[in-house]
């Protein structure tokens, strides 16, 4: 029960955090950019001009968006998420958000695994795990799709385009 309004609140706070991060990015870019030199000794535009100008502009725009987001947040507190809002598999929003982070985690794991398993095995495994475990698709059809995808990618990228995909320790 408590997770639902919390999720809504986190989402709203996240928006403000995003604009805050943009503002910070702008400030940092402006400060670092200034160090590259705004103008050359002869008065011409230097390498720091565009980063600094962009940084200042971004900081201002980010701050305006941040203030606007905070005002909107105060004016209208986050509406509780409809608990009955389910997708075709009956997943609620908190469950879907969990799924999202699981997929992100698996993706990260697949990227790290490339150096050991190679690109094709690692990402082939990712497709299989996501479709069977996360999406609860049938194993046989998931396996067929995974193998087809790996063969297709191998033919197009490795054989036809001669892309040297990382092979990992297995040499595949």
């Amino acid at each position, binding site marked *: 029960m408590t997770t639902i309004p919390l999720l809504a609140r986190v989402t709203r706070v996240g928006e403000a955090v995003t604009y805050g991060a943009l503002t910070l990015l702008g400030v940092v870019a402006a400060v670092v950019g200034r160090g590259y030199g705004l103008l050359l000794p002869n008065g*011409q*535009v230097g390498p720091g001009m565009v980063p600094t100008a962009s940084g200042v502009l971004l900081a201002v725009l980010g701050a305006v968006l941040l203030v606007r987001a905070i005002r909107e947040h105060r004016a209208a507190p986050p509406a509780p998420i409809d608990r009955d809002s*389910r*997708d075709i598999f009956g997943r609620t929003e908190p469950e879907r958000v969990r799924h999202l982070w699981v997929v992100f985690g698996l*993706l990260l794991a697949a990227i790290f695994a490339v150096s050991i398993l190679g690109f094709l095995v690692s990402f082939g495994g990712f497709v299989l795990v996501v479709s069977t475990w996360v999406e*609860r698709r049938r194993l046989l059809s998931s396996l067929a799709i995974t193998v087809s995808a790996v063969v297709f*990618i191998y033919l197009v990228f490795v054989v036809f*385009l001669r892309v*040297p995909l990382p092979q990992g320790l297995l040499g595949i």
Partner: protein
Amino acid sequence: MVDNILLGFQTALSPENVLWCFVGVLAGTVIGLLPGLGSSTGVAVLIPLTLAFEPVTALIMLAGIYYGAQYGGTITSVLISTPGEASSVVTTLDGYQMARRGRAGPALAIAAIGSFVAAIVSLLLLALVAPPLANFALGFGPPENLAVMVLGFATIISFSGDSKLKGLAMAVVGVLIATVGVDASGGTARFTFGNVNLLSGIPYVEVMIGLFAVGEVMYQIRQGAAAPIRATFRDMMITRADISRSKGAIVRGSGLGFLLGVLPGAGSTLASFLAYGVEKRVSKNKDEFGKGAIEGVAAPESANNAAANANFVPTLTLGIPGGATTAVLLGAFTVYGIQPGPLLFDQQPDLVWGLLASFFIGNVLLLVMNLPMAPVFAQMLRVPYGYMYPLILFTSFVGAYAIDNNFFSVWLVFVFGLVGYVMKLYDIPMAPLVLGLVIGTLFEKALVQTSALGDGDLTILFTRPISVTVLLLAGVFVFAPTLVARLRGNGRPGTSDPTTDSEETRV
């Protein structure tokens, strides 16, 4: 001129040339379908295959790959919101929305028709005005180019709807990202933090794949699995009404695309954004833009195709590449011992006109292949998303790796995928970021050169007729709608611009 065109068709219509043009278009379409592999990569990768051919045959095949890859990128823009090129980014706005409503077939068909019409218009314009236009383009110095870049940014502001501030902020982020790497004018390493991979900057293709492909997939996972889109075959066919609605957009897009395509640089991308912006202003259905307006697909697709053709004006007549792909083709010219320049039209008319005629033939082949195939491609959306999205992620990451055979690209896609997800979550438009990134480098280059030209005095920008005209145009783009709305509302407070108050376009 008629003799030249006839000579061109005579050369291009030989069975061998038509066959290789077809092979090029087909191979290009397949390459364009793969995220990360755009027309420039496709042409570069396949140049070795053409070395055994006659120069004209080889160039015709490469031109076929160019068009095929562009259309392949359009297919993925419409079906899975993954643009193959920066110039297809705008197509995702309405094309993807059309696909979500079961109208992917008409979106793909109008893209093919628009491209075809643009090819005819631009071929005629190329034949008529290539040399004078090349001279016109030569008159574009740094101040004029800088003014064109300002016009590009004005476009962003003009069509970001209610989210003008967000659009502008994202364009600035794009420019900021474009400054990463070694500064072209002075050689200063900026924002590289000692990372060798960042010295050459952050490439826009990886950013695009991350934002659009990975970001969209993640957002869809959060939104929840929807039922596969099951449109009837009839819904997948383009109707007379669709074509009638798109006529004006195609003509305007073609004209605008050709004009901007003549200018070396980001012509195609700018052209597609501008064509969309103009169409959103003039269309009777402006409220539908961003929600699946067919004109929103027709205009940018016509514009980027016309610009792609017009890119050949500076390439052939001046030896200055109009864009990334024509730069690769320029390399191919030298491989075949051809020296582009003002004398090329006189010295090798069969080659030049044969190539120009092949643009037309390539687009006819594209139309013949893809008009009936559009509903078939659209059937891809019937695949359950639970299978589709892991495959999209797989091809996106492998495509990103294949760009430079560098694993750093994979990490860039991952990071920008996260950024894209956050942007989708908070309705922050992505297209301005891509445009800012694409034209940011050109903007800075033009700024530095203008500053050098004026000895540090940038007011030189206001002393040249073309740059002043372009800047005025940019001003009109930004301020005219508000002024018109105020005039219509007799200046009453609270009366606002109907175009900017329409529902926000999520770019």
